[in-house]
């Protein structure tokens, strides 16, 4: 697979560039022509976070001519453990501005295009069409499927990477001859079944490893050299430092890249991934569990009520921050029901409200008459009630 850099005369390298890229120029696989191809190339980085940081930095250093960045987020202190393109003084700043500053400092010749938006079905084709290759560093299933489908529809290769805790995946999708993300995973998991990085955590170095693999694939596709990850899924296990690879096949019945595609334009990816916008009723009641706001909890605490708060996070999370709940980690709850009084109202709490909702539903099934979920968890408490409670 080679990405055809549009049939144009390749741009000449300046004297500065000849010296900057000398270690590339003496590599037979890159050489003058390869470096000129890199200079002509336009790459879109979706996300400037964990994967996007090393991706953007290395692509910029390598001499990519045009680098598009898509992000709408601002830098948060909890990003800095892995998102190395941002620094401490950037906290609160737009990620795009922070990233652009670092990239231009690294290589002033780079042309950065900032797309300050959330990629959506309405704008994805328009944004992606101007690039040769897409590098997907997003953090949620709807955007993964959106990027995949847009790449297939436009015929743009997608250097894919994904991470969770100590484990990563990488491949190249949506080339003409190779499989796409939907060939690998026809359907997304239902919401809540796969924990997010915020719930599950991630080793800060892991996106560095995986993002650099993505960047390597981007460069190889542009140069048309080596063996790309098309048709292979690379699995990275950082904890045991094992790299394994699995064969990927193009699914002839794939709804987007198969012989008779049923998806011929972008769809509603939130709906496809089972995510429905929360109605007013759902805000107050979810799956039969009343949702308590942190303001309501504060009001009742201040009124001197003796409340039973059940904190279902892990002990190490409790050490970081707690709001006076009794700690029984999620997985221990079924064995420790005798410590949870049936005659009292149980206010279940976790970090952001997901795990506590599951425990609340479990307690209700177990016959507890009065169970409520603390919506937004300890994060909402820190945001809205007491900023002294650390966020993590």
């Amino acid at each position, binding site marked *: 697979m080679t990405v055809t850099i549009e049939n144009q005369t390749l741009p000449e390298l300046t004297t500065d560039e000849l010296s900057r890229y000398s270690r590339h120029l003496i590599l037979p696989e890159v050489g003058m022509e390869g470096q000129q191809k890199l200079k002509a190339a336009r790459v879109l980085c979706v996300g400037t*976070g964990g994967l996007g940081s090393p991706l953007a930095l290395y692509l910029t250093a390598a001499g990519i001519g045009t680098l598009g960045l898509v992000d709408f987020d601002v830098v948060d202190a909890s990003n800095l453990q892995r998102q190395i393109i941002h620094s401490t003084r950037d906290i609160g700043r737009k990620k795009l501005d922070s990233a652009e500053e670092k990239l231009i400092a690294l290589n002033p010749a780079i042309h950065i295009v900032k797309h300050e938006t959330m990629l959506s079905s309405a704008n994805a084709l328009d944004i992606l069409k101007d690039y040769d290759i897409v590098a997907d560093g997003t953090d949620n299933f709807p955007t993964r499927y959106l990027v995949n489908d847009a790449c297939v529809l436009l015929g743009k290769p997608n250097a894919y990477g994904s991470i*969770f805790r100590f484990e990563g995946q990488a491949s190249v999708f949506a080339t003409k001859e190779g499989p796409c993300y939907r060939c690998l995973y026809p359907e997304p998991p239902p919401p809540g079944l796969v924990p997010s990085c915020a719930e599950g955590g991630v080793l800060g170095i892991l996106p560095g490893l995986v993002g650099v693999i993505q960047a390597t694939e981007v460069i190889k596709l542009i140069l048309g050299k080596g063996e790309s990850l098309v048709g292979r899924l690379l699995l990275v296990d950082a904890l045991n430092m094992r790299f394994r*690879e699995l064969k990927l096949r193009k699914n002839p019945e794939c709804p987007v890249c198969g012989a008779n595609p049923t998806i011929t334009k972008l769809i509603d990816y939130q709906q496809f991934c089972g995510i429905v916008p929360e109605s007013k009723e759902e805000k107050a009641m979810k799956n039969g569990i009343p949702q308590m706001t942190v303001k309501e909890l504060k009001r009742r605490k201040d009124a001197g009520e003796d409340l039973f708060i059940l904190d279902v996070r892990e002990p190490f999370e409790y050490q970081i921050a707690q709001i006076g709940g009794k700690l029984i980690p999620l997985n221990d709850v079924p064995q420790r029901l005798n410590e949870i009084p049936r005659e009292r109202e149980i206010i279940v709490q976790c970090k952001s409200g997901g795990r506590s909702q599951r425990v609340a539903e479990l307690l209700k099934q177990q016959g507890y008459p009065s169970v409520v979920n603390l919506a937004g968890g300890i994060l909402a408490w820190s945001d809205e009630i007491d900023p002294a409670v650390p966020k993590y």
Partner: protein
Amino acid sequence: MTIFIPTPLRPYAGGNGTLEVSAKTVGAALAELTTAHPDLRKHLFNSEGTLRSFVNVYLNDDDIRYLPAKEATEVSAADTLSIVPSIAGGTGCN
């Protein structure tokens, strides 16, 4: 044979990254696994007992969906089975 358990599913497999089973087929290996660790069952299979579409199972480096005998494929002690679920993390991880 060795079954590789991915990180997201390890809490339901006693925290193990790999497990050994002595089954004769892929299906029997998965059955042995979920009998030993019943919590894994709902993460791997839907209510009809078929593998969930977002969980891929590989015998060595081959997707079992593309093996002629699929789950009835015979296995030996030297084979490995990998469970590869979809993960989405990457950017902000919010």
